Each structure stands twice: as structure tokens, then as C-alpha cells.
């Protein structure tokens, strides 16, 4: 029995990475859920919106780096993040003005909106590849680690170390601030209340004098800002590559639906549940169990539920299970 080592091992490979990944998914899912709450359609272009915001932040980071601006040991990308947010908001407003507003005036079906958003996704994906190209881009600078495995081992004398990357801490801290701000906005401010009223009952909200175009505009601004933050943090923690934002759409939608679509609290909850399931289901518990079991005993196999190749299948399975068993999600949201 060696609980300290088992915990360190689990933290290093499961808890810390899943916490950061969960925060990134939660930010993405919040954006999808807000658009669904107000505009009532599943916005498939959200992944590319993340990519677009991150790309603008990267370009701004490179500019700042070339000018010698640095906030070391923090990454320069944090300084460039507002530019990314502004670019994403601009993009969202443009697409709403030239694409979505047309269908809103025609009072089209939600399914038409969803298909239109797929079109927007492809156009945006092409635009991103024209501007920054399809390759990996590295823009992280500053200190890489807060705690390295070696330092942790030296400090605690354990066999297993915990590495904590600076980007992981930044991700979690920024996500906390953003989520807190968003909830404050929705619960306490005039426009937040107007948005909730609009989401609850569109006609009643109109009757009480809420301007629908303004509500829609604020929803886009919030969703785009969340997307830019989520995309930049994801790129900072892992790597920025345009193709990845197509793949990440699936776990984000799974998180949104699992939490209850249109429910901000549910989106955050869903993001963390999906992240922890993905990491834990594909993690091999062999060594973890060896530490917990009697001395000298080691499991024969890897004790792994699913091979890492099936990481994306986890989101799929959760998505299907939720739609079958509890289509409203954990916190009762809208049924698609």
C-alpha cells in the first residue's frame, strides 16, 4: 500500500491534465449553450470561431514578440488575448449581419440554422487556412512549468512526481474568472436578465419591451469572446493547429448536451465530466493499482478500459447515452 505515490501518479496523468482539458471544454460548451439559449440552434461554426480567435491572438503574440514586449514568466499570448477576443467578436457580428440575420428575418427552422452554421464553419475554416496555413504553430513562451516532476520528487521524496504546467494553471484560473463573470452578468445585470427572459419565453420578452436584436448581438459577443479565450488557452496548453478545432467540436457538443442544452451551469459541469471520462476511460491503471495493492503485486494487464485510439468514442458514447436516457441533460435543458 502506498497511497501517496498512487495519488501522485493519478494526479500527474489523470487529474491535472483532465482539469485543464475540462476547463477548455467548459468554455467552449458555454459558448455553444448561450447561442442555443438565445438563437435556438446548434452552432457548428463554434469550433472554427475558437480557431479564428486563437489565430488572431497568435498573430498578435508574434507581433508583440517581434517588438520585444514580454510579460515573462507569463506567456505573451495573455497580453494578445484581447486582440483575439475582438477579432472573434468582429467575425461573429459579421456572420450574424450577413448570414444568420437573413434566416432570422425569414423565421427559418432551427435545423436550417444548424445547416447554415455548417456552411459558415467551412468558410471560416478556409479563411483561417488562407491566413495562417494548416500547420502547427507554436506561440507559447515564458516559463513552461510551475512544478516539474524532478522538483516534486526532490521535495517530497516520492517515487512518482507531479508536473504542473504553467499553461494548465492559467487555463483553470482564466476559466474560473470568465465563468464567474458570466454568471454575475447573467444573474445581476439588466442585459443578463433580459437575455434570460428572452431565452425563457421569446414572446413575453418582446411584450415587456426587450429589443431582440440587441439580445442577439450580446449573445454573439459573449459566445465569440468565450470561443477566443477557449481556443487560445487550448493552443497554449497543447498546440495550435487548425484541423484540431474540427475534432474538438464533438466533445464540446457532448458536454453541452450532457449538461443540459441552454444551461450555462450544465455546460461547465458537462465539460468537466466529458474531460474526466475521456482521460480516465483510456488511462491504464496498472501502476496505480500496483501502488494500492499488496507489496510486490502488479496487475498482469494494463488495466485499461479502452485503447487511447478510442478517445473520441468516449464522447460519442456519452452523447448517445444521454440522448437515450435523459435527453434534457443533467440540469433540465431544452430537448432538441
Amino acid at each position: 500500500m502506498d497511497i501517496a505515490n498512487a495519488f501522485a501518479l493519478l494526479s500527474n496523468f489523470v487529474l491535472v491534465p483532465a482539469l485543464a482539458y475540462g476547463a477548455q471544454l467548459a468554455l467552449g460548451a458555454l459558448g455553444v449553450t448561450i447561442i442555443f439559449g438565445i438563437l435556438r440552434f446548434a452552432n457548428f461554426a463554434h469550433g472554427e470561431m475558437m480557431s479564428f480567435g486563437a489565430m488572431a491572438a497568435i498573430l498578435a503574440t508574434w507581433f508583440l514578440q517581434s517588438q520585444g514586449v514580454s510579460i515573462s514568466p507569463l506567456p505573451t499570448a495573455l497580453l494578445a488575448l484581447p486582440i483575439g477576443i475582438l477579432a472573434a467578436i468582429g467575425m461573429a457580428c459579421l456572420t450574424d449581419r450577413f448570414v444568420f440575420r437573413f434566416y432570422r428575418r425569414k423565421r427559418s427552422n432551427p435545423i436550417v440554422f444548424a445547416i447554415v452554421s455548417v456552411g459558415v464553419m467551412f468558410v471560416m475554416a478556409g479563411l483561417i487556412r488562407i491566413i495562417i496555413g494548416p500547420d502547427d504553430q507554436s506561440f507559447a513562451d515564458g516559463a513552461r512549468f510551475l512544478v516539474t516532476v524532478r522538483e516534486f520528487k526532490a521535495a517530497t521524496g516520492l517515487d512518482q512526481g507531479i508536473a504542473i504546467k504553467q499553461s494548465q494553471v492559467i487555463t483553470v484560473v482564466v476559466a474560473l474568472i470568465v465563468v464567474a463573470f458570466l454568471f454575475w452578468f447573467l444573474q445581476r445585470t439588466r442585459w443578463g436578465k433580459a437575455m434570460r427572459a428572452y431565452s425563457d419565453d421569446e414572446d413575453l420578452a418582446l411584450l415587456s419591451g426587450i429589443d431582440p436584436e440587441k439580445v442577439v448581438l450580446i449573445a454573439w459577443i459573449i459566445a465569440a469572446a468565450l470561443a477566443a479565450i477557449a481556443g487560445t488557452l487550448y493552443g497554449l496548453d497543447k498546440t495550435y493547429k487548425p484541423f484540431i478545432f474540427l475534432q474538438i467540436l464533438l466533445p464540446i457538443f457532448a458536454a453541452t448536451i450532457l449538461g443540459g442544452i441552454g444551461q450555462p451551469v450544465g455546460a461547465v459541469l458537462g465539460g468537466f465530466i466529458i474531460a474526466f471520462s475521456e482521460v480516465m476511460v483510456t488511462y491504464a491503471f496498472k501502476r496505480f493499482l500496483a501502488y494500492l495493492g499488496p507489496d510486490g503485486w502488479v496487475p498482469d494487464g494494463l488495466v485499461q478500459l479502452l485503447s487511447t485510439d478510442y478517445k473520441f468514442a468516449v464522447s460519442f458514447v456519452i452523447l448517445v447515452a444521454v440522448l437515450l436516457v435523459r435527453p434534457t441533460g443533467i440540469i433540465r435543458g431544452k430537448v432538441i
Partner: protein
Amino acid sequence: MKRFLPLLCAAVMSTTAAHAQDAVKIGMLQGFTGPTESLVKPMALGGEMAIQEVSDSGAFLGGKKVVSVRGDSTCVDAAAATAAADRLITSEGVAGIVGATCSGATTAVLNNVARPNGMVMISPSATSPALSTIEDDGLFFRTAPSDARQGQIIGTVLVAQGIKSAALTYTNNDYGKGLADSIQSAFEAKGGKITAVAAHEDGKADYSAEVATLAAAGGDILIVAGYLDQGGKGMIQAALDTGAFDRFVLPDGMVGEALTDHFGADLDGSIGTNPGTDSPGAALLAKLAEGKGFKGDDPYVPEAYDASAILLLAMQSAGSTDPAAYKSHIEKVSNAPGEKIFPGELAKALKILADGGDIDYVGGTALELIAPGESAGSFRETTVADGKWKTVGYH
């Protein structure tokens, strides 16, 4: 200006027309874009250096010029490779192809373009064992040895260093799978233990899950049979970040300056193997390449030089640029008997062949072709010390 334009056009057209008549074209079909782009740049220059040398000698088929025509085989896109090869053969009219870079692309080009058109292909870097048994009508050669050889060498090196167990990850394609299988069987035959084998997909953002699996299985060292600017790099990054492994075995696709430039001293103690030799040919080639913008001892550069050289020497030996005529001369010029030919001596070789003599091409890789038209191979073992590749010895 108006009067100049027609003149200029006429001048350009007449020079290109003259070129097309005299020059023999060689297709340089390499993965200029994609996972191998950092490997290919010096390779193509090395291959073109041999072409230039033959062209400048004035002794090739009675004084003909030779030019290189580049085509992009990519590495993973078989359709793009096939289209590029098709363009080289049908519209450029090349007399032979040096390429392709990766095994998958090479197989596609050989099956879909080279065999139907009866075109000779010499790959400097396709190392999949499957290419040893492929139907090729005697048209396919390679100056790099099969990965089955590299697997045996890695097994020997690991046992010699006293490493008892290793985890193994490979890039999920023909090259990675073939290499991983050969490493595993060679290492286990020598009494080593592979604790876990996990494939990784290229082009992902995050490899921590794959590394976590391998870390759970444990092992003294992690063998990364991948690409240095793709998933292989991601696997190493994740392994270093989580402290799962701190030493790596890096087969040929991972050996390159880009890797040590990125990770520096974090890779210290890692073992690299890639085709290479200590025959004087390698040093001569390195010297020839000086001042030409690439390094003559970069991975696969000597193989690329040799591929171009034996292709042209076989044409000289056959007295023809027709693939059907010269394909049987490739093994003849590469192996004994005959005068030994080192890099920079292509003019001498051309003269000997023109006079009806025999040559034994040694080149930059101490080339010896064995059946079915592939290099017997000689490998360089390197280690990373202070963030730089250091040669340990040759096998």
C-alpha cells in the same frame, strides 16, 4: 519595352527548346511537403548534386546534359504522389525517377505509375520491409536498407547498452508498423522485453493519453518509431512533460537537427540510429557538399546522391536512357567487380563505362545492392549529448 517583349519571349522559348532537345531529365520525386519536409530539402539537393556532376562532366552518353525535374510526392497522400509521378513521366518525359521519400507514397507510385509505364524508380529513403517483396518487374531499387535491418541493429544496440525493457510507440502507418514489428521481434529474440506497444496518430494536439498508457507499462526507455516533426515529437514532449520517460530510442525518421534544436539537452542519453557509414565515401560527400547550402551527412543525403548516381551510371553502361534497356545495368554498376567509384568521381566512372570497362560504385553509403535491388545497409549509431547528435559508431 513593347519591342523588347517579343524578343524576350523568343529568347526564352529558344533556350527552353534547346534544353528540351539535349537534356536528359531525371525526376526528383520527394516529399517536399508534409511530415518529411525537413528531411527532404537536403536530400533533394544531394540527389541533384550528383545529377549536376554528371551533367558537367561532358562524358554522359556522348556529352548530353542532365537536368532534375522536381515533383512533390508528399509523404502521406498517395493520390498526390501518384499525380506528381504521372506528371513527371507523361508530361515532363523523365528517363528515370529518384524517389519517392516515404514507403506508402513509393508503393502507390510504383503500383500505379512506374510499373504501368515501365519506369525505373530508385528510392533513397523508403524503408518498409513490404517493398522487398512487392511485384516490381525489376524496375524498383532502393539505396536505403529495409527497416527489418534497422530493427536488428536497434535490438543489438539496446542489448549492448544493458537495456532490459522498453516501451514502444509507432506512427500508425506502413513505415511505423513495419519498423515497430521488426524492432520488437529483434529485441525480444535477444532476450529484451517490450512492455507495451501503442500506436500514435500524427497531427494531434495532445499525446498525453498515449504516453500515460506507456508509462503505466513502464520500461527503461521509450522507442519512438515516428516522425520528428509530427506525432513523434508530440510523444516525446508529452513524455518529458509528465516525466514518464527521459531516454528515447530514435530510429531514422526521428534523427534530425530539428529535434535536438527543439528539445536540446532534455534528450541527453537518447540513442539514435539512421543509415550511415564510416567508409571514406561519406566524408568525401560531406566535403563535396560544402558551400552548397546543405550538409552531405544529413540523413538520407548520401542515399539520395547514390540513387541519382547509379541511375545515370546504369544509363551510361547501357548506352541508353530507355528504362527497359538500363534497368538490368543498375546492379552491375553498383556491385563488384570493377574499379571502385567514390563521390566526386562520377566523371571518371562515366569514362570507364564509355570505354567498356567495369565499375563498382561505392558512393556515399558504401553501396552494395542485394536481391531484390536494395541496399544491404550500414547504420550509424548516435547519441544525444549536450543537446547535439554525436556519432558513436557504425554497424
